[in-house]
Each structure stands twice: as structure tokens, then as C-alpha cells.
């Protein structure tokens, strides 16, 4: 990866993002608590990069994605695209925002309007954004070919397609306006193994051909290792480890990352029990620090997280620690 930070602003930058939800009784304020879904996320995405955010359900990875998409109002913090804030007063309008980031959803059965033909689902956004009518059919046919479908498929309704084909249509819709960033929300976890492989191949081909930039949300570390350039591991609202994919997978350091990697059911452990990732000595935290949070059993999403920081332990490899 080139170091974009020194030359130009990164494509996407998330600065100290917080998203809190009030929970509890609406009328009686004293019963209200704040659920801290995201507490202080800093991330950046370079041009042409694939950044994966991994973690388990409730860790805030989807909330972060929705905030970038403009579907979730952040409580505080800033999100910048090419150095320009897209939050608050300087926020671009609906139409400009649509060209910044688009999303590929997890469930291919819920992500397409069952009452619209594929052509209509793809043509309507183009029409909305002022593409001349003469170009629309060509653009739709073109994008369908790019995702491995036939232009004739446009006349069909979603229920006539398999899960994998639907996901291709979902990718086509996300690409139709030519967005800067593609947000992949568990793009293959609802698919069968064989279809999963096809979609992963397709995404990687598209990334190369169209020089796309991906932010991928996933809990499937096999997919993450295969696709990512950099990986951020989230645990209950915070990033606990961040680094290049090879650093994260070869030298997982934070206890939570290690636990996550150790618990993936990996068929290769049958063949190479000696290479078992569960074995191996846990690395020590950097001198003068302890890992934070230390106890990864019982997270508390309501209280303010303890004072901690991401400490660099290798080039571009950060681990969340608190001073010992």
C-alpha cells in the first residue's frame, strides 16, 4: 500500500466516531441509559484499498457502516471523503452522497424490491441522477455484463434468480452510479460455499478492473484474510487491533483477535494439528502497557469505556492498550 496520508487525504476518513442509542423508557428519563454502539472509531481507507472491519454481532461494525452510508446519524465525530466532511452542516445532499458510497447487503433475498424488475431497479437510480434516457439501457446492460449476468436478465423479477445471482444484481445496483466507495456488509455470509467463491472472485475482479475501494464488514475471517488489505478488529464499540492483513493473521496480538482467530472452525486443523492456531504463546503487551479491555468475557456497552489508546507495535499494526 502506498502511504497516501503524506501526499493526499485518504479517500475515506472516520474521526473519533461515536454512535449512542438511548434505551429504556421514553417517558421516565431516569430509566434511560445510553447504549454505546460505537465509541471512538478512527479509521481511514486509501484509494483502491480493501479495509475489513471484523467482529461479532453487537460490536458496532454495522453501525459504523451505516454511519458512513448516511443511514445512521453519528452522535459525534466526523466522516471525511477526500478531506471533505460529509457530516453535519457541510453534509452533501442526497444526490451527491449517493455517488460517494454504495452498499452491498448481506441478505440477497431482502436486498431487492420483489415488485420491480431488475432493469427497473437499476434504471431508476440512473434516471433519478439525470442520465439521458438514450443511455440508460446501455448502462444497465453494461453493468449486468460486468457482474456476470446477461442483459436479458433485466426483464426478470428478483424471485426468478438464485441467491448468488441476486447478490450479483445487488452488486450491480451498488455500482450503477459509479460510487467512490463500496460498502460490503457481510457480502457472502448468506451464500453457499460454491456461490460464495464466485462472488468473492467477482468482487476481486471488479476491484481490479474498476479500481474500486472496499470497506467490508464481516465475521468470516477466512473471507477477510482472502480479500483484505487492512483489517480492523472491533470489540464492543472500539477497535482493539488494526493492521495489514498479514500482520493481523500472522501475528494476532490482542487477546480478542487471538480468540476470534482461534475459534474459527478451520478444516486445516484436521490435517495439521501442529499448526493449530489455538496453540502458541500469547504475545506480551508492549512494555509499560496492558491490553485493553483485558477481560473479553463480559462487555459493558453502557458505561464509558476505560481510558486506552491504540499503540503501534509494528509498521501500521496497532493494538488497544492502557498504561499499566
Amino acid at each position, binding site marked *: 500500500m502506498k502511504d497516501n496520508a503524506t501526499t493526499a487525504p485518504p479517500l475515506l476518513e472516520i474521526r473519533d466516531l461515536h454512535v449512542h442509542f438511548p434505551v429504556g423508557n421514553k417517558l421516565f428519563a431516569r430509566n434511560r441509559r445510553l447504549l454505546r454502539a460505537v465509541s471512538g472509531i478512527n479509521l481511514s481507507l486509501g484509494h483502491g484499498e480493501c479495509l475489513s472491519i471484523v467482529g461479532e454481532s453487537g460490536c458496532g461494525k454495522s453501525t459504523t457502516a451505516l454511519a458512513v452510508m448516511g443511514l445512521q446519524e453519528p452522535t459525534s465525530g466526523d466522516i471525511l471523503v477526500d478531506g471533505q466532511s460529509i457530516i453535519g452542516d457541510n453534509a452533501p445532499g442526497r444526490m451527491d452522497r449517493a455517488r460517494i458510497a454504495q452498499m452491498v447487503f448481506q441478505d440477497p433475498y431482502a436486498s431487492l424490491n420483489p415488485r420491480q424488475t431488475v432493469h427497473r431497479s437499476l434504471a431508476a437510480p440512473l434516471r433519478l441522477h439525470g442520465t439521458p434516457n438514450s443511455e440508460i439501457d446501455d448502462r444497465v446492460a453494461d453493468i449486468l455484463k460486468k457482474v456476470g449476468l446477461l442483459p436479458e436478465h433485466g426483464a426478470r423479477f428478483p424471485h426468478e434468480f438464485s441467491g448468488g445471482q441476486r447478490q450479483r444484481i445487488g452488486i450491480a445496483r451498488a455500482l450503477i452510479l459509479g460510487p467512490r466507495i463500496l460498502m460490503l456488509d457481510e457480502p457472502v455470509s448468506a451464500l453457499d460455499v460454491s456461490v460464495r467463491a*464466485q462472488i468473492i472472485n467477482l468482487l476481486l475482479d471488479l476491484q481490479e478492473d474498476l479500481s474500486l475501494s472496499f470497506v467490508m464488514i464481516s465475521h468470516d*475471517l477466512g473471507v477477510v*484474510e482472502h480479500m483484505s488489505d487492512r483489517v480492523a478488529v472491533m470489540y464492543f464499540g472500539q477497535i482493539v487491533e488494526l493492521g495489514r*492483513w498479514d500482520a493481523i493473521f500472522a501475528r494476532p496480538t490482542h487477546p480478542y483477535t487471538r480468540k476470534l*482467530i482461534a*475459534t474459527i472452525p*478451520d*478444516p486445516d486443523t*484436521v*490435517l495439521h494439528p501442529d499448526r493449530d492456531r489455538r496453540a502458541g504463546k500469547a504475545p506480551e503487551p508492549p512494555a509499560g502497557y496492558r491490553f485493553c479491555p483485558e477481560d473479553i468475557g463480559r462487555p459493558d456497552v453502557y458505561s464509558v469505556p476505560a481510558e486506552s489508546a491504540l499503540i503501534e507495535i509494528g509498521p501500521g499494526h496497532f493494538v488497544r492498550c492502557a498504561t499499566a
Partner: protein
Amino acid sequence: MNEPVEHNAPLLELKNLHVGIPGRRGSVDIVRDVSFSIMPGEAFGLVGESGSGKSLTALSLIRLLKKPLKVSQGQILFKGDDLQNLTDRAMRQMRGDRIAMIFQEPMTALNPLKTVGRQIAEMFVLHKGMGWAEAGRKAVDALASVHVPAPEERVRAYPHQMSGGMRQRVMIAIALACDPDLLIADEPTTALDVTVQDEVLKLIAELCAARGTAVLLISHDLGVIANMCQRVGVMYSGRLVEERDTYDLFADPRHPYTKGLLGALPRLGTRHGAAGRQRLVDIDSLIKDRDTLLQEFCFEPRNPVRDPRLRAGMAGGVE
């Protein structure tokens, strides 16, 4: 746990099982000619993609196929007796007592209106003829055995008050309450987070090993199967295409579909260097050739003498 007892008779034996929709001109079979056996105490995995017939195979064992699906041919021998000859009443007695099940979504399998303690106790009352008081005490023990913290209090909890992982533990407690001979687990951890999945799988393995319960584990996840089972059957479009010891299967997959499946999986540690990804195998290109192969094979299901060409294909001769 790793040495299946050779001299014993199999606990469960499927012989040429066909499941299908009965029609005027014979049954349209969805599961075709599936045969395998499970030894007492053994963990057998059935792996396949959606629509491969792995769940139908399991449901047919315990007679929970939904209409209009029926077992159209074949035998299901449990301890030597064909389960199909049992009356519905005897089958109900068998379910939960000798053969237990865990399903994917614990929220729908548990009754939301009853406490979990009551639901566990029911198993003792129903199958062991205990009184409610005694059954209630046994329920606490059962919850403790699946490592639910504070079981004395948790017996009074309702399913919605528990997390997904806890609910699946309760399901396991219910399933294993009567010390069944066989546990059928259909995608038991698919709805769970990976760290919780790991705990639940370990729990199933540990409890079944301790009690000598055989497991039929159904999953789409090769990793889960590899870590849990001694033997694996791979299903594709209603057929068992390969059935081997787990190590052999992963070390040297023979059937082209199995090879494709293993190649399609982004596996940890397979990527080397900055750009060193291997392109994942696209099974579809394999299937096009194989489908014709399977098809010839399918149209003569009632003929026990199989086409030698295909037999070679099944055994691994086809590339």
C-alpha cells in the same frame, strides 16, 4: 473418541434411502440412494450446500418430513430395527428419548411461554415417568451440565431472557436429558457468533463423548464438520457423493465435487504475500460436466447394479 468400535453393530444404518414427493407415476425423489451408518458413540458429519438434501435425510430419520415429502424407498435401521415399521406413537416415544434433535434456531424450537426449566423437566416426565418435583431437580442438574451459570435461577428464566448461545445450551440440555443414543444436530451453530459457536460445539463434543452418544451433525461449514466428526459424508443434489474418514477426506478429496467444495473455501493461511491469493475454485464449471454424469446415474436408481463408469466416478476415478 477417535476409535469407533469395530466389532459393534452400527447404531444407525441407512440403506438406499430415497426421499421424494409421491406422484401418480412413481415418486419424484429429492434424496436419492443415500446409504451410510453410524457406530455407537461416533460423530458422523453430513456436509452439503442448501438443497443438497442433507436436512431432508435427517428429518426422514425421525419422521419429521413435511408433507408431501415421504420416504419412498430404503431402510432406516436403528439398532437393527427399521424405524419405518414403528407406529407414530412409538416414534414419538423414540424422539427425545433415544434419538434427540437440536435445530438451527433455538428461539423457534423453544416454547416462549414456558420457563426453560419446565421445558427440560418435561422430558423427564414424558420419557422417564418422573414426577414434576423430581424432574424439576433433574432440570437444574441438566442446566448445570451444559455450563449455564447459576442453573438454580436460570431454570426459572424464559427463552427470550437468554442470549442465543444460552438458548442453544438449553436446547442441548433438553436433547441430552434422557441420555439418547443418537443426537441429530442440524446446523446447531449457524445462527451464532464464532466465539459462541466454538463454545457450543465444544460442549456438544464433550457431553456426547462422556455419555457415549452418537452424533449426526449436519452443516454447510466444512470447518465445523472437520473439527467435530470422525467420518464425513458429502451430499450434492440429493446424493451422497463421498463418504470417508475426516482426515482422508480433507487430505485427499476424491470426488470432483468435494474437491471443488474444498477449493471454493477461502481458508485461513492460504494467502501468501501481498497479492498471493489463490483464485477460489468456481464449482459451477465442474458441475456442468458432473451434472450429466449424475443424471445418467439418477435415471437408473432402482437398478442395484450401477454403471461401472459412474462407480469409478464416485470412487474417485473421474477428474
